[in-house]
């Protein structure tokens, strides 16, 4: 019995310690926001004596609102395109018996393996030649492409298990394949669409490398690139930097906490 108790203490102790390790930086971020410069320097471990908002006012001057709007536009369109295009392709791959099917699938897996850093120069050259540097469209297009392979794989596994009787009945009723896909398959695919959309939103909202090389003008920067400006602008004014981060991070955390069940489910499914 006592051995059981010790094991229990160790188990709770370990997850509690790890939770503190996870929460501490977020706490530091929020507390630093309210501290005075003097407090930040002299009492790194202390809590702020008052809740001033001057740091927030400074942070907002770097244009966080516009960065966030850009991130929102890029995420919305890219995720919509990724989910639609991948769903369509995965449906075909799961329902045809062409030999070519296998090679297309292999190609998709290869596309999944290739990281943006491995095609950086030609991709930059192409977007530059198309005069799409510093445009949201110029980032949405390649991001969409890089999101497709993984999402196709996700949908493919789902469609393989999808009961085919409904489709048979619809075919007998004279539906075309396109109608079947959009009127029958899509409405019944809610969970997998949600999983794919959540996963891709997290990825695109946070994507850094492609946005970094393509968006150099402040008007078009997405949030991750824009955040670097905080450091450039307020070199050692940690209050302002942390205030900017708080503004950027807290909304994401709130969305996550509301939908945490779906986030966890969408990522947990990867191992299966």
């Amino acid at each position, binding site marked *: 019995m006592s051995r059981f108790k010790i094991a229990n203490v160790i188990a709770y102790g370990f997850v509690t310690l790890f939770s503190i390790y996870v929460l501490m930086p977020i706490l530091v971020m929020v507390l630093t926001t309210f501290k005075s410069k003097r407090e930040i320097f002299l009492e790194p471990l202390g809590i702020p004596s008052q809740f001033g908002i001057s740091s927030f006012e400074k942070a907002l001057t770097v244009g966080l609102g516009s960065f966030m709007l850009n991130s929102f536009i890029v995420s919305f369109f890219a995720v919509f395109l990724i989910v639609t295009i991948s769903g*369509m392709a995965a449906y075909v791959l799961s329902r045809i018996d062409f030999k070519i099917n296998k090679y297309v699938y292999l190609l998709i897996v290869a596309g999944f393996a290739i990281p943006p850093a491995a095609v*950086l120069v030609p991709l930059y050259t192409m977007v530059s030649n198309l005069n799409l540097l510093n445009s949201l469209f110029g980032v949405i297009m390649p991001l969409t492409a890089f999101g497709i392979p993984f999402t196709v794989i996700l949908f493919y596994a789902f469609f393989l298990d999808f009961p085919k009787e409904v489709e048979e009945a619809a075919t007998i009723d004279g539906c075309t394949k396109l109608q079947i896909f959009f009127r029958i398959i899509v409405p019944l695919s809610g969970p997998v669409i949600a999983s794919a959309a959540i996963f891709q939103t997290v990825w695109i909202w946070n994507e850094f490398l492609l946005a970094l090389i393509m968006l150099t003008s402040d008007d078009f920067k997405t949030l991750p690139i824009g955040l670097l400006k905080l450091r450039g602008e307020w070199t050692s004014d940690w209050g302002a930097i942390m205030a900017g981060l708080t503004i950027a991070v807290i909304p994401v955390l709130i969305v996550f906490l509301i939908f945490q069940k779906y986030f966890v489910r969408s990522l947990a499914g990867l191992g299966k």
Partner: protein
Amino acid sequence: MNKNNTQINSFSLSNDKVSVTILLVPALIFCTIFIFIPAIGTIVGSFYSYSLTSMNNWKWVGFGNYVKATQDEYFWVALKNNFIIVFASIVLQVGVGTILAAILDRGIKYGRVIFRTIIFTPMVISSVAVSLIWLIIYDPNVGILNAIVKSIGLSTPSKGWLGDPNISIWMIMITAAWQNTGFMMVLILAGLQGVSKEVYDAAEIDGATGVKAFWYITLPMIRNVLIVAILITTIGAFKVFEFIFVFTQGGPSNATQVLGTYIYLQAFNLLHMGYANALSVILLIIALFLGWLQLKSSRKA
């Protein structure tokens, strides 16, 4: 069984070429234009010497860029750092993630969802924001790491936590683990929850409980999930970019470069486009090899 399959397929999409085309072509166009053509462009470009400003002035150098890479000590440093990050990430993220998952699965009774939610949280924060938050923690003047280390009577590194490459690579690992361990935990937890209760009951009858049962019975049963977790971590370790870009910019004197940041440096700071392409091809080969491993392991699963 086989006959049944053919029947389903014969009424299915294969005889409707218009639908097949409309549904399949957009994905192929996107991937071809933005992934496959640039991949071929990377390979072709790696045999030339050119810079961003002289885009029309390509000079054929054959394998020159690859020879240059083998003689470039910083390329080897970058590759070595990638491998350090791979191994450390597997230990820290998959290893600790497995322990956390095991505890949340069967080790504790209360607060599972709360612990899971907290530990998973950093996954949704962008790596740039994560890096900037940890930057203040590591800061030699205002950082809480210094404050904590001093308060327990130890001395802090003289060049700061990020100034000495032997230390900073580990600071990068701690930050990466902070962001990704929760993801591994959730992935492995899903695998653990698939192990049926009867297995544990049977194990208990054989006298295997607790850690022993976990090591000899549970771990082998979630082998496939662990392989996927290790592959995802390895692929992620070769994509590491933001932490290094924000923390050290690859410095001091290139000691903390990884392939991603070194390619970026060569291409967009030094404008050695051909050389950057050659480095990209090396990354491409590693990535495709890992992708192939993943495909093989998922087929088994």
